[in-house]
């Protein structure tokens, strides 16, 4: 609860803050708080990813991008009333949607009764890997992870395609 309150306060600070350097640092702190929340939920693997990717690499990449642009957010030309309305409606719809979810850590929730018991009971026997997260990720759901890896690959290929051509043109200028 304390963590979530701090995260809410940070979100407000990020929205109010106009200096982008401060925004990047605050976003890093937000990611670390998120990682702490995930540790509190016993999702250590996800927390580790959040801490290393969200707080570590993204902060550095955003700082590198910030180096190429100006450090302050530009004042918007018009008052963003329509986006505000859309965001409010979508947020309200999402909150309404959470009302239909099963209670937190309810053992009868559909997600806990479908394939999870089999994974938990058979994973060690079938794969010889004690960490169920790893065996689900790499073996039972291997196709999904292949897709994820391809997404990461596509991101890298896109960055190369967009930014490398520019560099080659420079010496010819």
């Amino acid at each position, binding site marked *: 609860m304390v963590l979530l309150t701090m995260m809410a306060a940070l979100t407000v600070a990020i929205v109010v803050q106009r200096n982008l350097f401060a925004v990047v640092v605050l976003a890093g702190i937000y990611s670390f708080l998120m990682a702490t929340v995930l540790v509190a939920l016993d999702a250590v*693997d996800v927390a580790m990813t959040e801490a*290393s990717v969200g707080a570590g*690499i993204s902060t550095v990449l955003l700082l590198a*991008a910030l180096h190429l642009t100006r450090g302050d957010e530009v004042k918007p030309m018009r008052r963003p009333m329509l986006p505000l309305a859309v965001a409010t409606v979508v947020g309200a719809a999402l909150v309404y949607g959470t009302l239909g979810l099963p209670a937190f850590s309810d053992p009868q929730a559909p997600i806990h009764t479908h394939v999870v018991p089999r994974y938990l009971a058979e994973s060690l026997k079938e794969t010889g890997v004690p*960490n169920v997260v*790893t065996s689900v990720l790499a*073996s039972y759901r291997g196709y999904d*992870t*292949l897709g994820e890896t391809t997404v990461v*690959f596509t991101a890298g290929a896109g960055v190369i395609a967009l930014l490398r051509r520019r560099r080659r043109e420079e010496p010819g200028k």
Partner: protein
Amino acid sequence: MRRDLVLRVVAKLLIPFVLLFALYVQFHGDFGPGGGFQAGVIIAAAVIFYAIVFGLPATRRLVPDWIVESMVSAGVLVYGGVGVAGLLLGGNYLDYFVLAHDPVHGQERGIFWVEAGVAITVSGVMMTIFYMFAGRRREPDEA
């Protein structure tokens, strides 16, 4: 930051341990938290740390662009190759049971190579993005 003695010494001391920790996260992912994705990010973080302290040109000499860019695709190829190896040995695509003499060892071997592929691609992509962003100059009118 290239002239800061404390930073240089601390960076040289820390980077081997960061890389060692990445390997630990990679290979201990079967038993504790971690795996290919996290290990790849930590490897990239070590290289980016080196780049921040010693400068981008020195890093590009140490880890040249062609290595980084081939890592991006090599990881996906390793992952897909595990699937094809399963096909060639008579199983389904990404079926690890056929990779060794008994199913459990096959699973372990498959998971090992799949995680290695994920780590290679992720660290390659992270380093590529950093190289591309950090390698660009500011536009002249903003400098």
